[in-house]
């Protein structure tokens, strides 16, 4: 169905960006916030409208398109600026605009008093535009525009406080790391384009590609799938390109929540789900996705155990949770991956915004060693934080439980026992590090520094209301995807609404093998046990024994502790293996040889050649008047002789 209203979902944030970007400083901060929030609210309402139009269609015909214009027309290749809404897109639309709107509202309070207030909201709206373009685009080229757009906004917003050196560097790091991934992504797109072109299909439309994917040989599909996944590891911070995400925490906290937790970093997962028709035919590529996801999940969770910066713990947690999503899509359970994407967007945005509220209350303190005992001073923040923490730990009944459990059971059911084990251990670590954060921040005795302790205050309503809304979503968001096993217990058939809703998008994916009820129940009980064990362990280590256990554990295993605290020295290794040699090569060869000798040499050489030549020629100019006269006469006579004797 063609519906020309879809394009306006994109138009409003773009307008907001233009107005705030060009006229922002003259409008006053109140108007700027109103425009930015209003633009996203309009997009949100339109997304809801489109969603209802979509579900009104019969289940197998749920596709709304909007062709804006022909974007590229070159020879026989035609690429339209065409938007598409199917069930997968609609989920992303609602998550992006919904969470995005809440974070815009929160930002109005959080960024209050910042001197670049209009710039912040202009960038935020530009990000919304790029992200919506990414999810709405109907072909992979247009998707790449959005893909790059969100990368640009990520860079701009990480380096938002550019006068701080660390923020500017973090922005650069994010951009360059993403560039490495995008290189792979582009190669994948080129490979697909040439493969399809050789079969006479001169478009990269998702629906056209899906219809003709079987024409392409599986080898090419595998390579293309892996190349596209390289792009996803960059954007979604997976091994080995995850290094930029922890540093991205230099940006303002709402940015961390919106871009580096809820939306942009999930683009890789979305991309793989969108390209499911390709990955289904390239099992090796899918295997790579699952293994990388599983390893990343465990790896990042171990680092998260010992970090002291509240935002960095959450950053590593995000990387770890993204790993879960890749496990989900990697084992072929695309809907489970997207389901976790959605619930994660709720509770991780909430965790970040809650952390922002804590930081706000403590006048900018981010070190958890200087927190503690804040429970009664900022009760609303504490309550919502607790809800999010319970959700991410996988405590039964909250959203994270349903989504994480569906991924783990899919991993087990599809026979990836090793990956399941990785995820299973990660579940324990997740509960442990998140409750370590809770206990260190909100409980125990206060370690807040004196000057900060005097000003501890709950955040204004404009910040707490989005937190409460997100808390509600984090708690109840999971009930649209209750596993059938639990649904049957209370006689609820088709309780897996989410999976059924997305099923038409993933119709090519083979169904996962059915698991015996006892096995599935056992798995579920196992992961619940892990979550509770994690929470209890954190309680014992950080509250009951007042961190003495933590200190003695760190003392007993100093090597492991230091390895984790220094993030496995990966930054140092990258520095030594890639950055240093590159700098050395650039300095010795590119700068001191190529630039100085060849480029400068050519320029300076031609200059000195001219100089030397003119040094010779200028000797003619003797200053002797009569020499000039003689030369002049000789010249005249020669010319005359030429004309006369010709």
């Amino acid at each position, binding site marked *: 169905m063609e519906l020309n209203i879809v394009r306006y979902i994109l138009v409003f944030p773009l307008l907001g960006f233009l107005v705030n970007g060009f006229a922002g400083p003259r409008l006053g901060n109140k108007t700027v916030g109103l425009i930015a929030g209003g633009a996203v609210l309009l997009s949100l309402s339109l997304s809801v409208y489109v969603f209802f139009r979509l579900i009104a269609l019969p289940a197998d015909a749920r596709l709304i398109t909007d062709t804006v214009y022909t974007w590229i027309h070159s020879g026989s290749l035609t690429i339209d600026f065409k938007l598409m809404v199917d069930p997968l897109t609609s989920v992303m639309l609602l998550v992006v605009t919904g969470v995005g709107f809440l974070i815009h509202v929160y930002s109005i309070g959080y960024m209050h008093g910042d001197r670049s207030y209009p710039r912040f909201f202009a960038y935020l709206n530009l990000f919304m535009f790029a992200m919506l373009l990414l999810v709405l685009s109907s072909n992979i080229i247009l998707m790449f525009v959005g893909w790059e757009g969100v990368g640009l906004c990520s860079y701009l917003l990480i380096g938002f406080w550019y006068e701080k050196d660390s923020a500017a560097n973090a922005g650069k790091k994010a951009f360059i790391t993403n560039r490495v991934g995008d290189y792979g992504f582009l190669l994948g797109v080129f490979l697909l384009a040439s493969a399809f072109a050789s079969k006479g299909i001169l478009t990269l439309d998702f629906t056209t590609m899906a219809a003709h994917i079987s024409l392409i040989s599986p080898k090419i599909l595998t390579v293309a799938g892996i190349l596209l996944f390289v792009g996803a590891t960059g954007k979604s911070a997976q091994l080995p390109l995850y290094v930029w995400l922890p540093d991205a925490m230099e940006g303002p906290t709402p940015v961390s929540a919106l871009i580096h937790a809820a939306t942009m970093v999930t683009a890789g997962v979305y991309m793989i789900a969108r390209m499911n028709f390709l990955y289904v035919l390239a099992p090796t590529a899918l295997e790579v996705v699952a293994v990388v996801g599983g390893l990343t999940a465990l790896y990042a969770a171990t680092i998260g155990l010992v970090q002291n910066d509240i935002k960095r713990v959450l950053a590593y947690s995000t990387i770890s949770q993204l790993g879960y999503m890749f496990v989900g899509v990697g084992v072929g359970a695309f809907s489970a991956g997207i389901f976790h994407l959605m619930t994660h967007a709720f509770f991780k945005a909430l965790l970040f915004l809650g952390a922002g509220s804590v930081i706000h209350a403590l006048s900018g303190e981010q070190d958890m060693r200087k927190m503690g005992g804040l429970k009664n001073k900022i009760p609303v923040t504490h309550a919502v934080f607790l809800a999010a923490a319970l959700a991410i730990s996988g405590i039964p009944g909250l959203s994270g439980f349903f989504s994480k459990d569906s991924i783990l059971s899919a991993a087990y059911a599809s026979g990836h026992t090793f990956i399941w084990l990785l995820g299973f251990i990660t579940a324990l670590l997740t509960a442990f590090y998140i409750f370590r954060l809770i206990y260190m921040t909100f409980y125990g005795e206060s370690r807040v520094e004196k000057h900060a302790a005097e000003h501890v205050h709950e955040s204004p309503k404009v910040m707490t209301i989005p937190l409460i809304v997100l808390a509600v979503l984090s708690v109840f968001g999971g009930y649209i995807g209750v596993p059938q096993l639990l649904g049957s217990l209370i006689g609820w058939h088709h309780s897996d609404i989410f999976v059924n809703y997305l099923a038409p998008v993933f119709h090519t994916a083979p169904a996962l093998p059915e698991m015996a009820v006892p096995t599935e129940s056992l798995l579920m009980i196992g992961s619940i046990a892990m979550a509770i064990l994690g929470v209890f362990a954190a309680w014992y280590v950080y509250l009951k024994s007042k961190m003495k256990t933590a200190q003695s554990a760190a003392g007993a295993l100093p090597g492991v502790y230091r390895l984790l605290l220094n993030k496995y020295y990966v930054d140092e290794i990258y520095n030594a293996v890639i950055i240093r040699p590159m700098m050395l090569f650039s300095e010795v060869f590119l700068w001191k040889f190529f630039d100085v000798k060849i480029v400068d040499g050519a320029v300076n050489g031609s200059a000195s050649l001219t100089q030397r030549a003119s040094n010779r020629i200028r000797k003619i*100019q003797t*200053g*002797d*008047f009569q020499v000039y*006269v*003689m030369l002049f006469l000789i010249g005249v006579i020669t010319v005359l002789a030429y004309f006369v004797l010709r």
Partner: protein
Amino acid sequence: MSYQMLVVLSFVLFVIGMIGVAMRRNLIIVLVSLELMLNAVNILFISASRYLHTLDGQIFVIMVITIAAAETAIALALVVKVFKMAGMVKIDDLKKLKW
């Protein structure tokens, strides 16, 4: 006197003047030689004027004489200035304007 003879006279005077400009060392003599060249041209103009029965050549000559007078005046003034500065008017020693 035939026209040919006048042309030859003019040519001979011009060459004499030319050699004077190119060879003589004294600035005053160089200037005089320059005047000689101008007047050689004047003779050519006059003879051509008579040969062609038009007045154009004679009008030119009047103009040339006027301009030449002005030019000589300026040139002599410069020579005086040069003499005051350098204490001599030897042309081959006045070589300051070079590279």
